[in-house]
Every structure is written in structure tokens, then in C-alpha cells.
């Protein structure tokens, strides 16, 4: 058991303050310390750091970071151990409610009350929140039993209670897929998973291991069009959708169930980013960042699901380590690398993170495609990098390493990132 002692007395000021103690925040703290920053504070609103990992009790984490397959809580445990070894102040049960442009953070916790701290740099690692029923506007009644898949996951895995007895799942995001399996193992009947798109939005591994292995039907191009039940959910109406994603009501069907889980996407939690008036990427919903994960406000860094939604915690840790290291460097007065190249999404690419690159260092470019390509695919970064891959799907984030050699002579350029079916490059 890793214990984190509350700093009884918060210092008035810190070199680096990290908001959020998920894998992003934990890795950022280590990154900052490794760079030599002395006074580091990590704030997390839960009683134990670890973020969303604590409720992900399945395995599938850590292959890249620790070289072995571990569960979410184990991953969090190891990351937290490193932080504790690195002698970082960890304040839990604490929520950062506001941040001013001169980097004064306002926070509240039972052990400190309402307090402010000044910090030279800050890393925002608040994670993401789930899209809700309101955000996707399902008409119908409003009974108990309609909830996000993540809430159901917390109920089952952290609190030992079931969200219901017979569940329908709307959306084939990873949390929904994982919960389909989890609930089945808990003895809850899972009637099926509906997905509006013609392809699943979770990763392939989860479709196989969580649905197919358990004979749970996946209804593609299908959605929930009505919700029934006065007190508790009694059933939903589902209907296939046409090519314009409009429901075909003549083919609708009633599914009796007492629970509807929504797994319809995550959105970066941009609360503090908005208060700091950071430039946001309209596609990701998270802040625009440089190759060291610095945002449009100098000294403010961001990492993890608070920037863009990652499918692997390992990527989060890697990206956040960079952010923490750069925040540490800046706090110690070292110069930041020159950001002299822009990257933008091009053909069939939804978004690219980071938004600028430096010709002087090696960095990772992450992006997602908009539509799946089932055959050989060419991935291109401007005309400096071209690579053939087998297939691409929106559910799986693509990462490419880009170094100074590759970017030689690109200073001042804007590079487009494209994903094109092989053979169609000219068109």
C-alpha cells in the first residue's frame, strides 16, 4: 500500500503544480522532478490518486510503460510509487476550482480549507468526462436507470453494487464494451450494444474480448430512439438508421430493460482551460499544445485525456512525462525549444496533437482518422514522412515519432497529416 501524506501546510508557492492525479498527472510529476524541479505539488480530488484507472480493474495496461500487462489499479499503484519515491507533495481529496492568468490556483480540501497557491508553471491533467444523455439528446421519459457507462463501472468496481438486472448499452466506446463484459460476469443480462455508426467506436481487442467471447450482440447502424418508464427504466425503443443516420422507425423494436448505459464518447475536461482562456481545439475540445505540451498561455502545460482522449494509459504517461519535464525546465529558467513547424489535420484525419513541432527535438505526433480504411493505408506528414500501414480505424489513435533529421529544413512550414487508401494518393 502506497501512502501519501498530506502536506499539512501547503507552501505558498511551487515550481510546478499538477492538477489531476491520473496517469497523466503522476507521470508529469515524475517528469518535472527528473528535470530537477524541487517544489512540486500534485493535487487530486479523489482520496487516492490514480484517476480513472482505479475503476478499470481489467488488464490491458502497461505493456509499453512497464513491459507487462497489468490492471488499471496496478498501473496506478506503480505510477504512484514512483511519485512517492520522487518526494512530491501529494494533496488528495482536493479540488482546484480556479486558476488566474498569473498562475495563482485556488483549491479546496478538508485538510487545507479554501487555499491559494502560486506556481511558476502548472500542468493540467484533469482527464475527460463522459458525454451524457442530454448531450446526445435521446427523447423519451426520464426514469432512473439511465446512466453513463463510467458511472456504472464505478458502482460495480469501486462500490460493489449493480446498476440493474437487464441492461442495454448505447454506444460502442471502450467503456461500454468493457462494461458489457463486466456486467455479464456479475450476472446482469446484457441485451446488446447499439452503435449509431456502421463500425464500432471502441478498439478491436475489446469488441472481440468483451462482446464476441460472451455472445453479446452488437447492433451497428442502430440507435435508441425512445426511453420508457415512469419511475425506473422499463425498456427502450431501438431502430436502425439510414445512410444519413436518421432512424428508420418502421423497423424499430422494443427492448425490455431496467438499465441503459451510455458509452457515447469522452470529452476533455476543459473547465480550468476555459478559466485560463486557453486556445482550444474545436475537434478535441482540449487545449491547443506545442510539442512540449505547453498551451497558448506560457507556463501552462496540459496532458492526458484533458488534451485529447487516449485509448492507452501508456500513451498518456509518455505524453505527460514530456509535459512535466518541460514545466520543470521552464520553472528552473531554462529556455523552451523553438516551435517552428505547424501540423494540421489533412485528408481523413480528425485531429492532430500536438499542434506545433520543433525542428530541434524528437517528439511524438498523435492523431485519429475520421473514417476507417480497411485496406493498406498511407500515412503522410507533409512530404517529410510517408509510411504504409495495414488498416486504420477511428477507435485507435495513431502515433508517429518525428525527430530533427526528419524535420530538417521544415522550419516555418505547415505540415498536413493525411491518411489515404494506398493507390489513391494522387486523387
Amino acid at each position: 500500500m502506497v501512502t501519501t501524506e498530506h502536506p499539512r501546510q501547503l507552501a505558498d508557492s511551487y515550481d510546478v503544480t499538477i492538477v489531476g492525479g491520473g496517469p497523466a498527472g503522476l507521470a508529469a510529476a515524475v517528469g518535472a522532478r527528473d528535470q530537477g524541479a524541487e517544489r512540486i505539488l500534485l493535487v487530486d480530488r479523489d482520496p487516492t490518486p490514480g484517476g480513472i484507472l482505479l475503476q478499470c480493474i481489467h488488464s490491458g495496461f502497461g505493456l509499453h510503460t512497464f513491459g507487462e500487462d497489468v490492471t488499471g489499479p496496478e498501473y496506478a499503484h506503480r505510477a504512484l510509487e514512483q511519485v512517492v519515491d520522487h518526494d512530491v507533495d501529494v494533496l488528495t481529496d482536493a479540488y482546484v476550482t480556479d486558476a488566474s492568468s498569473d498562475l495563482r490556483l485556488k483549491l479546496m480540501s478538508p485538510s487545507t480549507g479554501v487555499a491559494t497557491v502560486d506556481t511558476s508553471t502548472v500542468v493540467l491533467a484533469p482527464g475527460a468526462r463522459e458525454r451524457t444523455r442530454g448531450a446526445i439528446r435521446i427523447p423519451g421519459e426520464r426514469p432512473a436507470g439511465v446512466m453513463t457507462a463510467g458511472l456504472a463501472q464505478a458502482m460495480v468496481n469501486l462500490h460493489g453494487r449493480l446498476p440493474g438486472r437487464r441492461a442495454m448499452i448505447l454506444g460502442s466506446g471502450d467503456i461500454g464494451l468493457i462494461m458489457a463484459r463486466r456486467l455479464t460476469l456479475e450476472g446482469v443480462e446484457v441485451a446488446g450494444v447499439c452503435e449509431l455508426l456502421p463500425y464500432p467506436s471502441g478498439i478491436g481487442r475489446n469488441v472481440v474480448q468483451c462482446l464476441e467471447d460472451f455472445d453479446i450482440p452488437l447492433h451497428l447502424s442502430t440507435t435508441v430512439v425512445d426511453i420508457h418508464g415512469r419511475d425506473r427504466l422499463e425498456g427502450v425503443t431501438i431502430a436502425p438508421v439510414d445512410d444519413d443516420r436518421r432512424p428508420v422507425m418502421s423497423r424499430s423494436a422494443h427492448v425490455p430493460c431496467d438499465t441503459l448505459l451510455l458509452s457515447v464518447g469522452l470529452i476533455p475536461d476543459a473547465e480550468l482551460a476555459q478559466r485560463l482562456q486557453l486556445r482550444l481545439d474545436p475537434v478535441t475540445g482540449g487545449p491547443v499544445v506545442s510539442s512540449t505540451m505547453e498551451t497558448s498561455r506560457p507556463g501552462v502545460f496540459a496532458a492526458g485525456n484533458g488534451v485529447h482522449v487516449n485509448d492507452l494509459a501508456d500513451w498518456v504517461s509518455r505524453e505527460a512525462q514530456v509535459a512535466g519535464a518541460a514545466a520543470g525546465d521552464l520553472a528552473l529558467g531554462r529556455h523552451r525549444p523553438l516551435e517552428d513547424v505547424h501540423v494540421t489535420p489533412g485528408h481523413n484525419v480528425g485531429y492532430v496533437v500536438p499542434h506545433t513541432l520543433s525542428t530541434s527535438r524528437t517528439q511524438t505526433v498523435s492523431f485519429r482518422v475520421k473514417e476507417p480504411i480497411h485496406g493498406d493505408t498511407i500515412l503522410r506528414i507533409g512530404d517529410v514522412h510517408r509510411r504504409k500501414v495495414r488498416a486504420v480505424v477511428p477507435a485507435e489513435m495513431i502515433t508517429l515519432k518525428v525527430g530533427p533529421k526528419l524535420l530538417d529544413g521544415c522550419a516555418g512550414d505547415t505540415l498536413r497529416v493525411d491518411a489515404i487508401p494506398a493507390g489513391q494518393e494522387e486523387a
Partner: protein
Amino acid sequence: MGEPHVHDVLILGGGAVGTTLARALSRFDLDVVLLEAEAEVAFGVSKANSGIIHSGLHAPGDTLKGRLEYPGNRGWHQLHEELGFGFAPVGETLVAVEEAELATIESIRQQGVDKGVPGTQPWTPQQALDAEPNLNRDLAGAVWVPTAAVINPYEAVMLVADAAQRNGVRIEVEQPVIAIDPVDAHRPDAPLIVHTPAGPWHGRYVINATGLFADEVAAMAGVPGLTIRPRKGEEYLLDRRVEGLVHSIVFPAPRPTSKGTLVIPTVDGTIMVGPTAHEVDDKWDTSTTEEGAAEVFANARRLVPVLNERDVIAEFAGLRPVAQTGDFVVGPTERPGFINAAGILSPGLTAAPALADHLVDILADQGLALVETTDWDPTAPHPVRFAGRSTDEQRRLAADDPRYARLVCRCELVTEAEVREAISRGARTLDGLKFRTRAGMGRCQGAFCTWSCLTLLAEGLDVPVTAVTKRGGDSWIVCERDDQPEPDATGGDQPELDAAGSSVAW
């Protein structure tokens, strides 16, 4: 069997009408019981509406609803001072989008002037745009009405009920009235006997304030001729991102095709658009519809073009209880002692405090002796809303009670102290807690705080979490695993890193 206890007044229904009446009667030396069918007061029409305390302009002066509108508006101003629920006197901008509508808005203004509503002002398009820059740039003119306000209707009704209770009124929830005994031919003046599943209640006077069900309850009392038809109104709440889009309640000139979709800055700073107005058959049909959303946004965009359906975070519908006359149906009936307060459609919320005074007069007329008590307290401690306080005040609150520094709802910044206070003042369900504190009302819609709210309710009510409901009845939220003995309701839920990793893994 001894003589049954006879209450002076039984109020049936704990909506805006029933609770303001309970509060009005609480200043007299009377034995009053309010019987509410649902798990909490304000769970009927009074929770699902536009939350507007109307300016006084809108209902014609020759109707009862028109006469009570402006006095009711003043009444809410006073109740707000006394009890401190969410209330903001934001005013109203009545907009003529087309030239042809200018005459309509002027005649509505004149109707208000005739009813004694002060301060109305005709505005040029430029004046309107200066005040509300997001209005349709092509508007023809507007009327400014300073007297309109917005309110948290559920919180207000709940605090009014709390105030009545503090002054001795008994409020009994989960007491649906299922029967009323017929007149005793030998003793026509005998008290009325009202039945709920818990037993009979005897009352000298019975006020029927049961909203949508007032016709059924009247029929139970042998009072025929009342029909209540539900008229649905859908409302759409937008994300905080669009906070400040409008500063006052924006009304269109009513058109023959639609009574008008409003753009409303709620007390909590969010924007709400609605309502629709369509007759439905089912008194429980509070579903929202695809068509309703389309209608609301099409109409609202005529007023404020930048409104976007994509910003919706929550939606709901309410049903207006509409009697045949289209006006309030208030007064004594052929059944001695049985008094209707029915057909309370819009502006019923606004009118409620004035309607309560009107009902007190009717009761006095009917022979109820009204003797003021000496210890009546019109005020009650105002609930603390942490999020609205200055940093210094927040510091002081947290220093005195660390539970003010523990966050329960992060979207709306609701603290544990506020949740506990709401439970101590009557919250028994997740919805009741939400209506009182806003926990779960923000953009994540409870994904983050539901579990904390559940455990705090379970602790406060001393029941297992599985017994806590969303809004009473069968609206349970979680159930036990099959294979496990009943775990304790509250303890041991915070995961320790090790425990979460090993004990629950499958």
C-alpha cells in the same frame, strides 16, 4: 373507538399552490396538514416549468389568473427576502421581430399598465440591442418590463414548505389521496374524511390543490363538472458555455401558431429555451420529443439566432393543468368544506402567493376562525450556496466547517455541508437533493456525484444505498449483487489502492 382527531384544514397537494397556502395558514392558530402523493413536495407541475415570476403583463385583467399575476409577483419578492431561495429580478424583453408585431406588444404593454404594472418602457431596436446584443438584428422593436424575475421553482416550493413546517404545519409525503367519504346524510356538516394508504384524515376544510389530478380528487368528493386536460411544455437547458447569451427573459410577441418560445436566463446562470404548448392525453406523459426540440429551437432562433441545439445538456417537459374555462377554478363547491384550487395553469407559479391569500379569504368567508399566533416567524435560515460566495466568505465557511471544503458536485461546486443541510431540511431522494442543491444538474449530469449523493442520503435517512431512489416509488438506483450478503450502507466505500486492485478483480 374514541372520537377521531379533526384537523382544521387538510391541504391536498404540495405544489406551489398547496405549499404557499400552508405557509399563509401557518401564521394562524390552526391545525393544518398537507398531504402530498409524491416522495417530496414540488414533484408535480411546480418542478417542471419555465421558472418565471411573470411581470404582471401577460394574463388579461378580467380573469382570475390575470388579477392574481402581479400581486403574486410581489408576493414572491417578499418570500425571497424571507426565505432566500434562488431568485433573480432579471426583467423581461418583449420582442417584436416583425413590424406587424409592434401593435401586439404595445397592446400587451397597455394591458400591464392597466393592471398597475410599473416601469414598462417601449424600446427602439437599438435600445433592445444595446441591452441584449445577441437578439435578432432585424427586430422591429421591443418592450422592456422590469418587474419580471426568474426563480428556482422547486427550491422555492421546498423552502416555502419548510417554512410552513417550522411554523407548525404538518407535511406528510407519500400520502396519495385515494378516496373521500360521501356526505353523511345525517350530519351534512360533519368533517370530511380523506383516505390515503396510511389511513383516514378528518378535516373541517379540505383544499383541493392536486394540480393535474384535481378533477379526479374533486370527483372523489362528489364534486362533478371539473375536467383537467394536460398541456405539455418541453424545455431545453443549455451548457454553461453559453452563459450570458441573454440577460433578461426574452419573450416573442405571441403568434397565432405558437404561444411563444422564451429564452430564459435561469437563476443559476444557465440558459433555458422553451416551452412548447401541446395538448396530450396522458397526465404522466412528460416525455420530450424530436419535434418539440425542433419547434423550440426554430422559434427561439427567431429571437436569438446563435442558439444551438448542440449546447443542450438536459431537457424535460411539464404538463399544465388546464380546466375547461382556461382560467383558475378556485372557490367553494357544492360539497360543504371542500374548496377547489384547480386548473392552475401558467402563470400559476407566479400567482401562487396571491392565490394563497385569496384562499385564506375564502376560508374565512366559509367560517374558519383566523387568530394570528404570537410566535409566527416569517423567516428561516437562508440556505448557503457555496459556489456563489466570495473567496473570503468561502474561506470562512470552510474554516468553521471543513465539510464546506469537501466537494460533492464538481460541475456546480456543491459541497458536502450543503448536501447534509438539504437532507436535514427534508431531501429524501436524489432528485430532491438535486433540486435543493444543484448537485448533479451540471454538464456531467451526475456522472461524478451520484455515488456521493447516494451514500450521504443513505446515511442521513439511515437506509441502505439500495433503498435510495431517484424520485420515490420504484425509481431505485442501484441493487445488491446476488452473491453478497447485505453490505453496510455507507462504510468502506473509498477504495484503497490495494483493495481495488485485488479484492474485486475477476
